[in-house]
């Protein structure tokens, strides 16, 4: 049949086109699905150390920051700072937050590293670029729906939608229905 030939050609070629985005959405989907257990965008490393307490004679914030960073052998230029209370200062560096108790000298560093591959995937998956990407994502979603429908008609006969395909499609559709009944 002519329509099936075109169905299969379109299914195949649109499938090829959708391959890359499907992989991105699949990997990012798993990553963001488990946000409660991990941060899908950043690796967070905590480091604890102790430096010599900052004496009360040092009162200027700039001087306090320099003294702390010098003791930690950090050369980075701080982008900002904040006093949480009279004794605790936060020094914000690029991807590192240094929190220091001035009277005890206890230091905790929170070093943040971007997940090179997954973060850009999440960025696209969650439509953070917006603008033109919204259209790309919409077209991709339509393509996925098209692939799902044309996929039903790729094969004819016993293994097609009139046989085994009908059962498998019904099982697949029953999964969201079951969870809707359980949780919704």
């Amino acid at each position: 049949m002519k329509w099936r030939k075109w169905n299969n050609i379109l299914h195949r070629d649109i499938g090829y086109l959708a391959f890359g985005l499907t992989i991105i959405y699949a990997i990012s989907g798993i990553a963001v699905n488990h946000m409660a257990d991990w941060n899908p965008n950043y690796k967070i490393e905590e480091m604890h150390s102790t430096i010599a307490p900052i004496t009360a004679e040092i009162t200027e914030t700039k001087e306090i920051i320099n003294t702390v960073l010098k003791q930690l052998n950090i050369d980075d230029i701080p982008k900002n700072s904040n006093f949480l209370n009279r004794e605790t200062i936060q020094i914000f560096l690029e991807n590192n937050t240094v929190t220091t108790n001035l009277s005890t000298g206890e230091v905790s560093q929170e070093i943040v590293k971007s997940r090179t591959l997954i973060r850009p995937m999440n960025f696209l998956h969650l439509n953070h670029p917006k603008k033109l990407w919204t259209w790309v994502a919409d077209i991709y979603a339509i393509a996925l729906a098209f692939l799902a429908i044309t996929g039903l008609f790729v094969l004819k006969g016993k293994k097609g939608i009139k046989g085994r395909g009908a059962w498998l499609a019904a099982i697949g559709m029953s999964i969201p229905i079951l969870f809707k009944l359980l949780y919704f």
Partner: protein
Amino acid sequence: MIKKITITAILTLIFVNLSFATDGEIKTNILGKPITLTEITKISTILANPQELLGDTVLVKGTIIDVCKKRGCWMEIASDSSFQSIKIKVKDGEIIFPLSAKGSSALVEGVVEQLVFTKEEVIAMEEHQAEEHGTEFDPSTITEGKTIYRIRGIGAQITK
């Protein structure tokens, strides 16, 4: 066939990274809905008279001193007054505050809201925070419930 799949996968990853290249270096990151207010309300004013501003949409400005480590669903911004800060909470997924934004300046528009917690809820909350920060927490230090004022974020501009 494997060669073709590998090439396609590599090209896809290059495309993704190119699309993302500007994000890492964005000077001003605009999140959520566009900011409509022009007049900034001081955080110290909100915290001094929270009941008066409850339910009002305000525009606040300050340094980001903490960000939710898992979902990026809240951030704490420093007040204009010493040792004071306010939490900006957003609906999970609607806005994600980047963890790398700590130390950056934020301009946030949102609604002032009040949360009343029982003693048990405060203990659970503090326990969760201690776990998240890897610090110790003694539940006996909590003797009563508390009321927290925060801002439900609608839109934000984060400047490096």
